[in-house]
């Protein structure tokens, strides 16, 4: 009986805030554990000897003694499951180890590189929202041709690969026009091109979702009803449409943040910008297991936190999620 009856009751139960938070926390720990485990085993699957990577890669021509010593030091001669358990134990004590390639504690490398990437991703997300809302509102206001044009723009934007976009922007704004630096240092002007590169494909994606739900909201009976009270077309968009349009986009923003971090790998490399993405890329190339795992964990943590944040925002924007659905 319970299955049928329970599905009649609102499946998204309000629940108390504390219970909800505990649930989220449990989910977060699970995600972190899964990320750590997957990374650990995935890196062991790459052909080659980790001890060799430890000593500077295949080109280093390390002696057998040196390799044996390294294996001994890092526990690489123990069975895989022991290595795994030892690794997990260290993570529990918040010890992320020392980077093979940089000879620095992983935690300090991440602390140094993460803020720049976070800033890049946040700005790109904000810009993507502004672009998406602009295109959605413009095409909703200006009729069918504008709608088709907006939709086409969005499809093109979504399809643009980051590396191509980055190179084209550098060619246009740095090489030809000379407005902006091609190398992104720590200066604010260096942020412009990387942010635009990341924002444009994302804006296309968010725009598609927003425009659809905006048009749905504008053609719904409640929008019509507002018009009969004397609300202007613009007023209906601001007071009714945008909130409905934002709902699905808020949910997607958590996912979008994840793609932005993976996009940062490309963008930081193209613009020679210090950051977590670039660190991750070189760490993978160097088979720097502690650094890769540490970076993946931090990204997974950030991703989970952002998803939780979007869930909270969702509940603020959509009161229906807070109260139980009325029978």
């Amino acid at each position: 009986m319970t299955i049928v009856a329970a599905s009649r009751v609102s499946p998204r139960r309000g629940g108390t805030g504390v219970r909800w938070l505990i649930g989220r926390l449990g989910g977060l720990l699970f995600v972190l554990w899964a990320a750590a485990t997957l990374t650990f085993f995935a890196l062991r699957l790459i052909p080659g000897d980790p001890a060799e990577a430890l000593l500077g890669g295949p080109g280093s021509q390390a002696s057998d003694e040196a390799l044996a010593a390294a294996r001994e030091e890092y526990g690489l001669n123990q069975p895989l499951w022991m290595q795994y358990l030892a690794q997990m134990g260290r993570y529990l004590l918040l010890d992320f180890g020392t980077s093979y390639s940089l000879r620095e504690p992983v935690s300090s490398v991440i602390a140094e590189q993460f803020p720049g990437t976070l800033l890049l991703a946040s700005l790109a997300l904000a810009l993507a929202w502004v672009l998406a809302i602009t295109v959605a509102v413009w095409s909703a206001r200006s009729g069918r041709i504008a709608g088709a044009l907006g939709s086409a723009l969005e499809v093109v934007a979504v399809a643009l690969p980051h590396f191509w976009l980055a190179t084209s922007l550098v060619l246009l704004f740095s090489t030809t026009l000379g407005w902006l630096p091609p190398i992104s240092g720590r200066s604010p002007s260096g942020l412009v091109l990387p942010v635009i590169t990341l924002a444009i494909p994302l804006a296309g994606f968010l725009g598609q979702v927003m425009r659809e739900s905006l048009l749905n909201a504008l053609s719904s009976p409640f929008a019509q009803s507002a018009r009969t009270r004397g609300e202007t077309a613009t007023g209906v968009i601001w007071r009714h449409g945008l909130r409905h349009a934002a709902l699905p986009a808020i949910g997607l923003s958590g996912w979008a943040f994840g793609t932005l971090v993976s996009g940062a790998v490309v963008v930081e490399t193209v613009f020679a910008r210090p950051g977590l993405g670039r660190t991750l890329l070189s760490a993978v190339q160097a088979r720097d297991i502690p650094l890769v795992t540490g970076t993946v964990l931090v990204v997974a943590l950030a991703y989970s936190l952002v998803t939780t944040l979007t869930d909270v925002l969702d509940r603020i924007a959509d009161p229906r999620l807070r109260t139980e659905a009325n029978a």
Partner: protein
Amino acid sequence: MSVEAIYSAARVGAAPLVRIDGLTVRFAGADSPAVDNITLTIAAGECLALVGESGSGKSVTARSLVGLAGAGAQVSADTLEVNGLSLLGLSERRLERMRGAVVGSISQDALVSLDPLRLIGREVDDALRLHTRLSPTDRRARVLQLLTQSGIPDPETRVGQRSGELSGGLRQRVLIAAALAAGPRILIADEPTTALDSQVRDGVLRLIADQATAGTAVLLISHDLTAVAAIADRVAVMKDGRIVEEGDTSAVLHNPQHPYTRQLLAASPANKPRHQLLLSGPTARESLPSTRTGDRTASAPEPRPALALEATDLSVAFSSGRDRSRPVLQNVSFALPVGTTLGLVGPSGSGKTTLARIALGLQQPDSGELRLLGKPWSSTPEKLRRADRALIGAIYQDPLGSFDPRSTVRAILADAVQRDGASPSRAGRTTRVTELLDSVGLASNIAERRPHSLSGGQRQRVAIARALAAEPRVLILDEPVSALDVTIQAQILDLLDALQRDRGLSYLFISHDTDVIAHMSDSVLRLD
């Protein structure tokens, strides 16, 4: 006061608030105009009802009065005036200033006409914010006053809620409050009572009638003749964009001149005794199945149980949220004798659907028992029950959602026949599909069409045919005609009645329309 002033004051008092002359509305790409050269006036304090079936142009006429006829609409008229203001060639800005201030509108679908994300108070405040210069404090006071006047209890709580927290009746009252906020002299109510159950409907109608009494010119659009009879002073009947008959309410309803008006009145189930056919004439015959003589005598010998459904003390509670359980059904008992109809009425949330689900064996009662055709049903384990599932079927309000849009009618019915297991051969299935279509009054050429290309009435007939495929003895009819126009509704009701007599079917008939229930039921169960 000068003579001229007296003259103009007298003229304003006498002049109708709504004047429509020669209004024609065409939509791009349509063959014929949606509204074809109609002429109407409504005086202050008068309620004019515009009746007709969907597509007759009622709503387009109403929307033209606020300049919202829709995208691609070409509106032309000799006169189109509200409160002395001609709408012809008026700019969008001036139309916006007029909407809500001069003409208030109550829209068609109360359940979805409030923004689910916005506070009730804001929705009611809209017209005040747009059309008055009141301070926010004064506006808030006025909103509370409007909600009170519209019969909403505890307005202080309600202003801070959203439409999802309100019942259908309260939502409609909020919409009325929002429409009246800026004190319009003209009120348009487009089907204000659809989807409301009868008690709520009467309250809403009274509220609208009060506006007319207070001097507002009211345009009521409805297909519900009971509603019209209750509050309208005059009635205009629309068909295919034209007004075919117009006059005082009692004259039109009691002494209709035009054949179409007569047909509409005949189709209404109000005050029609049980088993009386609603429609007569050749069209009605055609849509009814050919009578199956001889069938009854053939199946008569087997002993039949006296009761199709028998419920004893059914109780169901939903556990909602934090271990608090909400009773949905409490000690409900009823008996449905074979070959009869039990009407099931009650406001939304009263457990009608839950009861239907128990009858269909989709849900277990917490306590009590339901017996099907004399045998235990709700207490039987699913394994044993499956064999008897074919005995009971269901027909719902919107069949479209339960049809695979890519299937043809033939595929839909053949599937139902096959599941029945009775006719394994391909030829046998084809014959059976034709038989089923015939039994619901559909021509066999409809078999190759897809559900979305059918009319609402045809779809409901296909749904009935599908339910009949398994040769059920009991049918649950859950609002089967609520989405249909009166004449189509009458055809379906006549069909259901004929099927019941031919096959000895028993119906559990759920509806919010008391006229339909009264016409169709042998006994009525009310849930509260």
